């Protein structure tokens, strides 16, 4: 199994990094999701050792059982990465509505390049109401 895992991890990481280096936000979100999947596969492959069976009673053949801990870890990680990906997609949707363009560099715009009036309003009133 391990060579298959290694190939899959390499492929996912490669594609993930490629997408993450894009200048647009949406591909970068997909890239992060793929990297999270690669991490899950690494942990499954690293933790899968036959000699380390779960807590079992005598008389059960150990070779038949997998260690459940890595699976529990991966399950938790899947849930967390799903939540974060959803959050990223939601902010992506909000960004697309506000800025239109899907450009990652919008993050680094400083106040000096913005309209002083809108900065003032932002500081005074807790920001635009956005529903």
């Amino acid at each position, binding site marked *: 199994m391990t060579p298959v895992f290694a190939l899959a991890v390499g492929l996912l990481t490669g594609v993930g990094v490629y997408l993450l280096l894009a200048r647009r936000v949406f591909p970068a979100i997909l890239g992060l999701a793929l990297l999270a999947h690669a*991490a899950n596969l690494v942990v499954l492959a690293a933790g899968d050792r036959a000699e380390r069976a779960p807590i079992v*009673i005598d008389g059960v053949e150990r070779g038949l059982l997998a260690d459940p801990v*890595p699976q529990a870890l991966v399950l938790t990680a899947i849930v967390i990465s799903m939540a974060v990906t959803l959050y*990223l997609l939601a*902010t992506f949707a909000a960004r697309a509505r506000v800025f239109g363009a899907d450009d990652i560099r919008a993050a680094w*715009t400083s106040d000096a390049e913005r309209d002083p009036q809108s900065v003032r309003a932002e500081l005074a009133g807790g920001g635009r109401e956005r529903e």
Partner: protein
Amino acid sequence: MSGLPVLVWLLPVVAGLALWLVPRGSLWLLPLARVAAALQLVVTVGLFRATAGGDILVHALGNWQAPFGIVLAADRMSGLFALLLAVLMSITVWVLRPGSHGERSVRRALPLLFLLAFGLNGAFLTGDLFNLFVAFEVALLSSYLLIQVPGTERSLRAAFPNVAINLLASIFFFVGVGLLYGQHGTLNLGHLARAIEVGPPETLTVVACGLLALAFGIKAGLVPLLFWLPATYPTLSGPVAALFAGMMTKLGVFALLRTVPLLMPATPIPGVLVWVGVGSALLGVLAALSEYEIRRLLGFHIVSQVGYMVLGLGLLTSGALAAAIFYLTHHIVVKAVLFFVADELERRSGTRDLRAMAPDRAHAGGLASIFLLAAFSLAGIPPLSGFFAKVGLFRATLELESWWALGALAIASFFTLASMLKVWRLAFFAERPAKAAVESGPRPWPVWTLVCASILLAIAAGPAYEFAEATARQLLDARSYADAVLSATSGVALAEAPGP
């Protein structure tokens, strides 16, 4: 076996969820939040007192014996961090009010603040590596949402780089945890420390520890992966930014303090951390010198000072570690004060740019004196707490005769003072026509309590330093940590459990 860590851990989540249930527009929201914060403070003081003597309070959740179940383990450092968090939480909750920060953002921020405290306390109290990961994620998810609370264009812009880099760090953290489990078959920190201690570290263990250190370094805002921090913190609403400046980056530092002496003393990682610390100390302060947005400037200062702490941690002697812990305590208090002041200044003058600030001088006296005390403390001027923090670090580097580290620290300190003087001159003494007066917000007395805490830390520097030294000794004593965590049995031991 003690229930106190569980209480400290779970109180914020109960409070956070209860605050979410408070109906819109209810007058109960603020009083409830303040009572919850005060309650948390009381419980945490209890925990601090219980751990200050050197005992490690261990609680096996669900009474599952240590290497099989998850344990909470509170030592001196856990108590210290939980206490600092509870103090900052109380002040943040006290300062955050609808009058000055907007009804809607207060209603959204309060429950999230408590959930953030739940995550942070979980990280401080856990004795299990994977549980540390989960606590990190709880804190991070709350922090992502808190960043969106102001609902401004700027917070929307900052969301992606912040979440992306933190998610990447979480992936490294997770892979590190998985590899360590694959190597050693345990996730319990004490058990892992014992397993790693045997013989020279294997390559895969070093790689896994490196991934952990990289993840914590990103979250602490260390060189070279620091630029998300000054981009994110200025977008937060004022008091929340103060809490973030105090506690969020220190989560990374905490995780390093916890794992480096336990798991990595034999690896090359502490040596790398010294260089990373020097780099952060210098780069952070130089970036701050060239910055004109007040909270971005302070954000770069965080990077610089986290560098000081990590340098002390990397040296890994009890003196250097004690200095790092004292520095950290001082830094959390002072940095929060500076962010409170920066928030007031920004709101009063309606701009983030120091070059355009013109606060109403008649009402800026209190603010100016708070700022001066905090800035001098940060720069390390003698009667204030920063002086003792820096003397400790300088002494530690002198003892190890690492002259270049000493030189770098001295240069960074000089530039810290220079950049603080820049803020002082531009924000309070520039000749500019005063803008239309913005209402001057609440009286800053909660911030004065923090200033007093900083002064108290200087007056009581002797006992405080002794405490830091005791904490450092406890951190370096991996063996007794392992013993305490692994001997957490109160119920039926597993070996004696009845058969099926």
